[in-house]
């Protein structure tokens, strides 16, 4: 389950567990702080914070939690904040469908994944049924 791997040149800034609703708040505040530290403007800070909040909630609701890696590195010659969400949940059977606006498997409104994707500069998803899901988002500075 490591189809999405970190580049060795990236620096790991933080690792946060997502086990409950408080963890979601804590982790998104950590991401915002790193976005701020990276020199992102207020709108980009808000975009990445909102995007990861959607992803963290998904992990909590549908996969029983997981782990978040916050990294910093150079991607395509740009300073980049990289947030990777790793869970060992049920996986996503139909990724294409899950990326469709308005589609929801649970009680949500279905804005989670496609909405998060629109708010970031790069979005990767890897999922295996019954093994888990890894989603990585990137925001350039």
């Amino acid at each position: 389950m490591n189809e999405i791997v970190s580049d060795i040149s990236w620096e790991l800034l933080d690792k946060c567990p997502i086990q409950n609703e408080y963890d979601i708040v804590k982790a998104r505040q950590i991401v915002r702080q790193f976005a701020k530290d990276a020199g992102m403007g207020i709108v980009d800070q808000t975009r990445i914070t909102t995007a990861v909040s959607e992803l963290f909630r998904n992990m909590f609701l549908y996969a029983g939690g997981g782990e978040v890696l916050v990294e910093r590195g150079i991607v395509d010659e740009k300073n980049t904040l990289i947030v990777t969400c790793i869970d060992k949940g049920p996986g996503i059977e139909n990724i294409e469908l899950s990326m469709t606006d308005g589609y929801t498997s649970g009680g949500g409104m279905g804005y989670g994944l496609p909405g998060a994707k629109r708010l970031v500069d790069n979005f990767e998803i890897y999922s295996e049924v019954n093994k888990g899901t890894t989603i990585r988002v990137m925001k350039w500075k």
Partner: protein
Amino acid sequence: MDLNDKRIPIIKIRDYLIVSIQVDMHDRLALQLQTQILEEIYRTGAKGVLIDISTLEMVDSFIGRVLSGMASMAAIMDAAVVIVGMQPAVAITLVELGLEMPGVDTALNMELGMEMLEKRLNKA
């Protein structure tokens, strides 16, 4: 968990309830606030609710849904909800996220929100 379990205060002034959200709400706190506001509408007979979100640094799909749900629920209890003070970055992000908040009235600040509610009540 105790520190995080603070309640968000609801203040009643004349016919209005005033709520100022000043913490980064976790999901349960947002739902609790929804219930709390509806209970206060019922208890006090308030005709309008002003929710100040000027210190909120992000509104994701869950919080957006709670806010618009609150407006619909209050409407069927004969109270109007106005959300005031949304930061520009939050507005941009909400639209990019694709979240529409149908039936939610908004105002730039508390004063304009109050005017909006007063106009509506005087018309009725």
